[in-house]
C-alpha cells in the first residue's frame, strides 16, 4: 500500500478538533450542569426534582404521539398514491413534498397563525358568512395541527423511499397465493415498508416532543411542553441546572427510543 501523504493523514484533524470542542464538550457541559447546583457542587437534586415535571413530560409525549400517528395515517396513503404515478411525475411530486421542509418552521408556524388567529383568515371568513368566531389559537387541536403541518413531509419522504424499493412481484405473488387485498397490505406491504415507517416516526416524533415555538405561537401560552419548559429555564442564570437536567433526560429518552427503533431497520440511507 502506498504511503499516505501529509495532507491525507491530517485532513480530518480540524474536524476532529471541532467535534471535540463543539459537539462533545457541550454535551459534557449538559451533564455537568445537570448534576451540579448553582455553585458548582455535585448534587442529584435536579434529577429528583424532575418528578414535578412529570405531567409536562406526559403531556408532551401525548401531543407528540398523537401528531405522529396523524402524520403516519396521512402520509402512508400519500406515499402510496405518489408511487402509483408514472416515474417522471413521482420525482416532481417528491419535490412538492420536500419544498416545505426547506421553508423555516418558524414561517410555516406563523403562516398557520395567520389562518387561525382571532383576526385570521378562517375567522374572517366565518364572519363574512355570518357565523360566530371560533377560538382556534390556544386549543390543543391547534398545537397538534401545527405539529402535523410542520412535520408531515418528514413522514412522507422516508415512507415513500422505502416503498419505492418494494418489489411489486411480492404483491403479485401474495395475490396469486391467495391473499386478499387487506391481507396483502398487512402481511406483505406493511412489513416490507416498516423501515421507512420507523424512520418517519422518529423524524416526526423527535421534533414534535422538543418543540417550543409551536406551543408558544399556536398554543397561546396555555400549554407547557418540555420544549417550553427547557426554554424558560435558560432565560435566567439561576435555573440553568434544572434546564440542563430536563434536556439531559429528554435527550437520553430520545436517543434510547431512536436506538430501539433503528433495531427494526437495516436501512441506513438517510433522506435529506
Amino acid at each position, binding site marked *: 500500500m502506498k504511503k499516505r501523504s501529509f495532507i491525507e493523514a491530517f485532513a480530518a484533524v480540524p474536524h476532529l478538533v471541532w467535534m471535540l470542542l*463543539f459537539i462533545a464538550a*457541550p454535551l459534557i457541559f449538559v451533564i455537568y450542569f445537570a448534576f451540579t447546583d448553582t455553585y458548582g457542587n455535585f448534587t442529584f437534586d435536579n434529577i429528583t426534582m424532575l418528578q414535578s415535571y412529570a405531567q409536562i413530560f406526559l403531556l408532551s409525549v401525548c401531543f407528540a404521539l398523537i401528531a405522529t400517528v396523524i402524520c403516519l395515517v396521512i402520509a402512508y396513503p400519500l406515499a402510496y*398514491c405518489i408511487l402509483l404515478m408514472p416515474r417522471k411525475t413521482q420525482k416532481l411530486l417528491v419535490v*412538492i413534498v420536500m*419544498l416545505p421542509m426547506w421553508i423555516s418552521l418558524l*414561517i*410555516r408556524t406563523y403562516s398557520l397563525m395567520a389562518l387561525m388567529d382571532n383576526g385570521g383568515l378562517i375567522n374572517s371568513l366565518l364572519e363574512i358568512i355570518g357565523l360566530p368566531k371560533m377560538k382556534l389559537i390556544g386549543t390543543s387541536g391547534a398545537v397538534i395541527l401545527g405539529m402535523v403541518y410542520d412535520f408531515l413531509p418528514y413522514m412522507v419522504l422516508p415512507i415513500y423511499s422505502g416503498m419505492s424499493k418494494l418489489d411489486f412481484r411480492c404483491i403479485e405473488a401474495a395475490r396469486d397465493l391467495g391473499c386478499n387485498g387487506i391481507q396483502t397490505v398487512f402481511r406483505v406491504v406493511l412489513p416490507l415498508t416498516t423501515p421507512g415507517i420507523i424512520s418517519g416516526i422518529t423524524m416526526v416524533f423527535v421534533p414534535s416532543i422538543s418543540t417550543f415555538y409551536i406551543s408558544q405561537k399556536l398554543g397561546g401560552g396555555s400549554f407547557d411542553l418540555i420544549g417550553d419548559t427547557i426554554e424558560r429555564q*435558560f432565560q435566567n442564570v439561576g435555573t440553568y441546572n434544572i434546564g440542563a437536567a430536563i434536556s439531559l433526560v429528554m435527550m437520553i429518552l430520545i436517543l434510547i427510543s431512536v436506538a430501539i427503533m433503528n433495531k427494526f431497520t437495516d436501512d441506513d440511507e438517510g433522506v435529506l
Partner: protein
Amino acid sequence: MKKLSRIYMWVIFALLYSPIIVLIVFSFNRAGSLNHFSTFSLYWYAELFRDSSALSALKNSLILAVSSSALATVIGTFAALGLDRMRSKYIKGIINSVTNIPMMNPDIVTGVSMMLLFVAAMSVTRVQFGFVTMLLAHTTFNLPYVILSVLPKFKQMDKHLTEAALDLGCTPLQMFFKIELPFISSGIASGFMIGFTLSLDDFVISHFVSSPDFQTLPLYVYNQTAHQVKFSMYALCALMVFVILGLLLAVNFLGSRGKEKKVRMRDIV
C-alpha cells in the same frame, strides 16, 4: 382507484401549501388585513425596508450564512478527504456517529448544550454571545451536511484516475487539486448551499446562542410576532420563502450539472 388517489394527493398538497400561499398573497395586500384584499401593493415590503432593525437582521443573516457555510465547507471537505483515506473502519464509525449527533439530537438540546459551553467559556475568556457564538454554532450544525454531500463524491471516484495521476508524476498535492477537487466540486457546492440554507433558516439553535445585538432574520421574526400579526412580517416571510426557493433551484441545477460531469469523465476513461 387511480382517480381517488390523485384527489387525495392534491388535497394534501393543497393543505400543505395553502397557509404559505395565504401568507404570500396577503403580504401584497395594501389594506393590511385578512378580512379583505384591497389592492395589490408592495407597501408592506417598503415598510419592511424602512425598518432599520429588519435590515440589520438581514445583513447579519447573510454574513452569518456565508461565513458559517464557508467555514463548514472547508473543514467538512478536508474531513471527507481524511475519512475517505482512513483505514480503520472502527475510528471512521466513531467519527461519523459523533458528527451526526447534531442531526439526531433535537435542535433544542443542541442549542442548550452550546449555550452552556459558551456560558462556561465566558467565565474564562472574553467570549460574548453574538456573532462568534452564532458562527461556531452554525458551523457545527452545517458540518455533517457538508460531509454527507462530499464524502459520497470521493467514494464514487474512480481510484484508477488518482493512481494514474500519481504514476504520471503528480505529487499528491497536485493530484488533489487537478483530479480530485474538480471531481468533488459539485458535492462541495451543494454542501455549501445546503449549509447556507440551513443557516439562513435556523431559529432554534440561534435562539439560545444569540444576543440582542446580533439578531438574524428568524430571530427577528420570532420577536416581532410575539404578540400580534404584523403585515411587514408577512412580507419578510414571503421574501424568505422566495430566497429559499431560489437557492433550492440553484442547488438542483448544480446537482444536475455534477451528474453530467460524471458521465463525461466516464466517457473519457
